[in-house]
């Protein structure tokens, strides 16, 4: 069963900008899927079309087997959206926001109350249910948007940058929550600037750039394509001469720090052996970029945060 199927999806905005150039994409039910791309690549447009916030120019969207044009009520009922920007009524109370959203999906009030309690407790917002939403902290607002998206029990949850601006502790607890949700059967599509997040959580990935899908594969297969790993090496003493170690690219950052591109086929041992033979002592080693970030740069040619 496919949770999401896009067929030749195209979007041209009124100003003539072609945001999507006829993309095809499939996300299997139960998947944890990353949709990655630099700013302006077409991620938000794709999500906007799937969630009916953006009108497509042409193409077909199928959600849990329902055609979004012809069976739009069934299709929409399957989706929950956690948008990138805060978009709830800042003057309403936390509990009321969640209850209203359940009502919009046609969930009877009695059932909605039970679900509201469940999702607010899961996201540690139950104590805040009578608080006006604008008084919540940034992290709580993000969690409220997740609670709101889950109250109608969607089969497909779309999260657009869910942890942007959230501190590391809350981010990790949100990861645990999303993992558990996925384990219980909810398909999750995630866009994020934190590639570590995508690498940690997602089983499959698509990279979109300039309105086209340039890669759609499993995370493990994608990471296998990685040619280099990048590391920082901290040296015990200043070393004026940079050794030439065949196959490795060494860049001097300061007197005692080097950045090294390590070919995956060679690994680290030959490098350490060569440095040891030259009397160069390494006191620490750190990963320069996470693997997915490295691969993303390799594929797209610029980092995530940069505009397409």
């Amino acid at each position, binding site marked *: 069963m496919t949770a999401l199927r896009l067929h030749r999806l195209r979007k041209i905005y009124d100003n003539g900008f072609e945001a999507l150039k006829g993309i095809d994409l499939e996300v299997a039910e139960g998947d944890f899927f990353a949709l990655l791309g630099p700013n302006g690549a077409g991620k938000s447009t794709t999500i906007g079309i799937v969630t009916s*916030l953006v009108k497509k120019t042409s193409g077909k969207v199928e959600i849990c087997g329902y055609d979004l044009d012809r069976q739009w009520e069934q299709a929409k009922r399957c989706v929950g959206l956690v948008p990138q920007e805060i978009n709830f*009524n800042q003057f309403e109370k936390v509990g009321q926001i969640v209850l209203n959203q359940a009502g919009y*999906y046609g969930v009877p009030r009695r059932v909605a109350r039970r679900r509201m309690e469940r999702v607010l407790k899961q996201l540690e917002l139950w104590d805040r249910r009578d608080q006006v939403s604008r008084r919540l902290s940034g992290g709580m607002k993000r969690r409220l948007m997740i609670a709101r998206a889950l109250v109608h029990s969607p089969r497909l949850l779309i999260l657009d940058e869910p942890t942007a601006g959230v501190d590391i502790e809350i981010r990790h607890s949100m990861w645990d929550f999303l993992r558990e949700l996925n384990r219980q059967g909810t398909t999750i599509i995630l866009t994020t600037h934190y590639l570590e997040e995508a690498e940690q959580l997602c089983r499959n990935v698509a990279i979109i750039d300039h309105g086209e899908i340039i890669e759609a594969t499993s995370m493990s297969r994608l990471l296998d394509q990685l040619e280099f790993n990048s590391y920082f090496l901290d040296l015990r003493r200043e070393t004026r001469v940079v050794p030439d170690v065949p196959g490795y690219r060494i860049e001097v950052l300061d007197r005692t720090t080097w950045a090294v591109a390590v070919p995956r086929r060679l690994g680290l041992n030959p490098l350490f052996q060569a440095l040891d033979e030259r009397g160069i002592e390494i006191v620490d080693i750190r990963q320069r970029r996470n693997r997915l970030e490295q691969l993303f740069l390799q594929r797209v040619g610029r980092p995530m945060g940069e505009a397409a």
Partner: protein
Amino acid sequence: MGRRWIAYRTLAGKEIHRFLRIWPQTLLPPLVTTSLYFLIFGALMGPRIGPMAGFSYIDYIVPGIVLMAVINHSYANVVSSFFSAKFQRHIEEMLVAPMPNWVILAGYLTGGILRGMTIGALVLTVATLFTDLRPTNPLLALAIALMTSLLFALAGFINAIFANSFDDISIIPNFVLTPLVYLGGVFYSVQLLPEPWHRLSLANPILYMVNAFRYGFLGVADVDIEVAFLLVGGLIVVLSLWAWWLLRRGVGIKH
């Protein structure tokens, strides 16, 4: 209970709760303003102005002032609430949900009508402090008040769809609605006007609503009541179709 009914009830309930929650902004000011109208134009100046169409001046202006309140607040409720939903982007809560466009429209209109009619009833209650006026045809008065409220709630909705800033939601009420209401025979009979003002007044749709409502109280009107109902009914159909079409096209709310 059907899902659409639940969605409608949720939105309508939210809209009603909104204007009740902020009652010092929504319900109180019109009571103060209209009390001043009754005091100044009715009790203080009325006896000097003399009778109008065979009725005391305060009796003559009460229906017009009540309907003026209904018009302004039905419009204001929908235009401010829907624009605010656009501005804060919580309109997206409805757009992602399986809510047909007509349910969204009906929810907002219900809020507008309820606020307009509530304020109309409150203003009428305040009027009893100044006059013992009773409607001669309450059903007719109620029908035209409801239809007028619906019409201006629709107009407010369309204004909010096209609005891009808070200025855009105040231009129509200030520069179109207020002059039309004041020139719509609220404070005078258009029979008193010389030409071409009399003829020009007949082109003002609010004149027909005010006079039909007044007819429900006093049994007199400057216009044909059937024409008034047909005009208001026709405008409701046109604006309903327009609002629904705008929602369907996603004008002002979808890229």
